[in-house]
């Protein structure tokens, strides 16, 4: 996973709430067995509408998505994160996320920042007034800066450290393999064994 410290980019204002993962990438794109190349599926139903914000050339090349509350609810499909990453997004900003999507994003180096609704609305206004507005997302300082304003965000120390170091969870866990083996030694006898 790529290390994340500070990211600066322009933003797309997605003025919608409850953007579920079926909207981020419809199920038909989930039939693939690869891990890359999902950018064509990103918001594919909505992108058929020429007035959809992602079709506005003013926002071409943006790497920060600013969305309404309950972003990424619903299905556990990690494809939603892959599609956002593959399209070129590095950061999503929303007041609230679906839990599974949030977990997936932080494992894939897509920083999902939680800011209050008022901050999101200010960012929407700034970006709509000037699509070239630079949004600076500073993970070290846990701060978003844009248009001369700044907003602090929360992310627990462990998750932040892992993102900043670009660490793979499996490698971290396998450092504790002895503890896993020890635990397995005293699981109850009536436990289910499939095979």
């Amino acid at each position: 996973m790529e290390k994340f410290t500070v990211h600066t980019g322009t933003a797309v204002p997605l003025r919608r709430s409850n953007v579920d993962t079926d909207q981020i990438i419809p199920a038909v794109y989930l039939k693939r067995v690869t891990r890359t190349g999902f950018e064509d599926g990103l918001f594919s139903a909505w992108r058929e509408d020429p007035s959809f914000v992602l079709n506005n050339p003013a926002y071409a090349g943006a790497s920060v998505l600013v969305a309404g509350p309950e972003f990424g609810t619903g299905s556990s499909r990690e494809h939603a994160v892959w599609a956002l990453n593959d399209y070129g997004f590095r950061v999503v900003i929303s007041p609230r996320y679906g839990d599974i999507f949030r977990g997936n994003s932080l494992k894939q180096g897509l920083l999902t920042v939680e800011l209050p609704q008022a901050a999101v609305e200010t960012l929407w206004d700034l970006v709509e007034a000037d699509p070239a507005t630079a949004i600076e997302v500073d993970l070290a300082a846990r701060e978003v800066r844009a248009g001369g304003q700044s907003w602090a965000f929360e992310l627990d120390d462990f998750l932040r450290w892992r993102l900043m170091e670009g660490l793979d969870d499996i490698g971290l866990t396998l450092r504790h393999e002895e503890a896993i083996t020890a635990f397995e030694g005293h699981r109850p006898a009536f436990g289910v064994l499939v095979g």
Partner: protein
Amino acid sequence: MSRTLAQKVWDAHVVRRADGEPDLLYIDLHLLHEVTSPQAFDGLRLAGRKVRRTDLTIATEDHNTPTDNLLTIADPVSRTQIETLRRNCAEFGVKLHPLGDPQQGVVHVMGPQQGLTQPGMTIVCGDSHTSTHGAFGALAFGIGTSEVEHVLATQTLPQALPKQMAVTVTGELPPGVSAKDLILALITQEGTGGGRGYVVEYRGPAIEKLSMEGRMTVSNMSIEWGAKAGLIAPDETTFAWLKGRNFAPEGQDWDDAVAYWRSLPTDDGATFDKEVFLDASALTPFVTWGTNPGQGASLDAVIPDPESFASESERAAARRAVEYMDLTPGTPLRDLSVDVVFVGSCTNGRLEDLRTAADVLRGRKVADGVRMLVVPGSAAVREQAEQEGLHEVFTDAGAEWRFAGCSMCLGMNPDTLQPGQRSASTSNRNFEGRQGKGGRTHLVSPAVAAATAVTGHLSAPADLDAVGAR
């Protein structure tokens, strides 16, 4: 110290705890299906890793499978995904119930029906409806593909302890009102984000009276209001359901297991971070009108005016939903005509659900112009239903009796809505395009689905008696 059910299950699975880090939790059962596993197996191969515990891992095929036959997967992309799962399971030594196997079916039906799901376990699957298994007092939650790979490699997951919420459902469900109506009403009351950050325990007299099938319907939809998991304390109903199933303990192991399971319910005096209440006796058949599961109403209500909602984000979502669903505020929900009725899914594809729908349909006909699909949640459910003659009730009524799979719950297999079609569906998500691009979904209970099939518009079984349709 007094602990909740979820805390007890959690504590029993902590492999490692360190300050400033998430707990490392042991996973007792890992369920796999074809959609969210291929990239995880690829990851193992790339790193030269094995599946640590093939004896705690089991796979089935469900999302892509056809429901009109057991032999041919027409879509080559779907077929490749299924074949990839078969290859991966063979290569890594994972047990698989493929299409045509007597235990094949929707992953959350397949596990419980074999007795794989038991109280006190930790269960994960790359599928958000893994919350279903919480009905047995297991801590069960959906994970992404990176986590699937993590569990395959280590049989553990790093997890931060969520907050605890109790949902107490008082009173008694009125006749004709089911577990599905209960959970739809709760989600509308609390909103799609209401459970976010919490492990929920459903409790109270109305929950205790539910069958295991009903409890699974409730736990299944925990994710639809954002909860991490939704548990129900194991009790005599749970034990009776489990006893004798393929993987249920036997003899002394059974007695030991039951003794342990009896220690799991939340202690008197345990505290929750949040409490929510719902009065079951005030509930009616409940349906959704919008494009998220929190946009629901009593079947007796009308399409709400989007401007009547409290916050701007709710108003904007309601405006968009009314437009997408092609609705006029003020229209009675009963006036909405449907093109398709779907009975099935991990929410309502179990034997009891099929019995309920068949009871409504017996001696009646599906309305002209309405297509009704009845899709058992598993091959085993299909077989049991046929032993009871339910399939004849459905086919006599003019409904399609199909093979097991996720079917029309999501647009990954041939069973989809056409653009603009409206459905009454016993599944769990009414998102835009969920059942097929441009499709419009109303979530309903099995009883409402069957009654709607008869009249052609959203209806409850009681409406049928009123018009003398029998």
